[in-house]
């Protein structure tokens, strides 16, 4: 009992007490200690620290965040019966703010024993739609899917990322780690070269962040729409003049798993707002 309480307090302490660290340019930035000692990053800096402060503020305020309309669409869909079985998500899970579902998004991608597979949050939603509502599956980047993921990720706001890379997930995790270090595209650059070795430096007009996935799905101000994490991967592939992959490809799920592990202990901030 006491041990559990100690562990819980420790969790809270590392979650709340974000230290300020100083970057090469001398600006203070909020940083979190990684949950695992084997994390290649010594400290985790949230993506918002690399944004103009006005955009970070827009993201933090539900009234100003342009993705919030999508969260509300998702919240309505949660309680609206759909499909042949006459049920809604709420029929089984109760109100979305109930504990289990509230934090679920911080645990994906996740190994599901029944499927013998690591699945993303979008696959989980589709599994429940098909099997438990008798409804059709939604395309990864369709508006109703973006709305449900935005809602579930918004519920998890503030929850530290806790994805599990051990056991049966280990193989996909290693694939993600390898991909992260593989030079890609005509420019022959790896994710690590930009987001591990060079964060804080400018690529064109953008400040390179550590490339954490915790703010996705996110509203892209220049495109005036919400994009998925996998679409952000495609954009990075395009920056190095390489080939992108569709949402939900095995490589992208592997990268998503690796990135989420690399972010473990960073609070979820979705839906994000990005320039």
């Amino acid at each position, binding site marked *: 009992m006491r041990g559990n309480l100690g562990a819980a307090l420790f969790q809270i302490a590392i979650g709340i007490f974000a230290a300020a660290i100083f970057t090469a340019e001398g600006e203070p930035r909020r940083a979190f200690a990684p949950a695992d000692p084997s994390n290649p990053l010594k400290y985790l800096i949230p993506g918002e620290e690399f944004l103009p402060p006005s955009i970070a503020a827009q993201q933090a305020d539900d009234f100003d965040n342009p993705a919030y309309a999508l969260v509300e669409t998702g919240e309505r869909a949660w309680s609206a019966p759909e499909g042949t079985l006459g049920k809604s998500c709420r029929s089984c899970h109760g109100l979305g703010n109930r504990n289990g579902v509230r934090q679920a998004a911080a645990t994906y991608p996740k190994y599901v024993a029944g499927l013998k597979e690591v699945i993303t949050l979008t696959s989980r939603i589709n599994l429940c739609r098909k099997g438990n509502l008798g409804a059709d599956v939604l395309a990864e980047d369709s508006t109703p899917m973006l709305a449900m993921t935005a809602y579930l990720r918004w519920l998890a706001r503030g929850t530290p990322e806790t994805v599990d890379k051990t056991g049966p997930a280990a193989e996909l995790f290693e694939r993600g780690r390898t991909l992260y270090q593989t030079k890609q595209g*005509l*420019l*022959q*650059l790896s994710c690590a*070269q930009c987001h591990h070795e*060079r964060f804080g*430096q*400018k*690529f*064109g*007009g953008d400040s*390179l962040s550590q490339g954490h996935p915790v703010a996705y799905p996110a509203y892209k101000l220049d495109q005036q729409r919400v994009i998925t994490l996998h679409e952000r991967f495609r954009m990075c592939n395009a*920056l190095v*003049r390489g080939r992108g992959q569709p949402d939900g490809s095995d490589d992208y799920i592997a990268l998503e798993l690796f990135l989420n592990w690399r972010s473990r202990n960073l609070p979820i901030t979705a839906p994000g707002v990005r320039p």
Partner: protein
Amino acid sequence: KTAGYFLEYMNPDGPGRLALSLQSMPSPLTGKPGDATRGRDVLVDRQRGDCLSCHKISAVTTVADQGGIGPALDGIGGRYSEGQLRQILVDAKVYFPDAIMPSYYKSDSGEPSILNAAEVEDLIAYLKTLK
């Protein structure tokens, strides 16, 4: 310039780090010198050189968002010979396997080149104007 400046310039991350080991490729890839005006176009074109995603050049005032991943190229034409610039553009990774600076011209491997020979020569002519 002070000794401190020299050390900074030559340190492993300093602007002169390539100069230490660079060899020269003296002959133009096309057999003739390039054109500086066309070179500037290649440099700023996002589909071709796109050099300003990573480098800064104060003389280019038409591009607002310039990058900071590589060293500023101000004065580069005074620091390197044409032959050295050619080697940097064709393949800087020969000297630094972990170089971020992309290889823009691959003549012998089967891989596609980012730029063609004439574009590389035009770029060199432009870089030589940055004194």
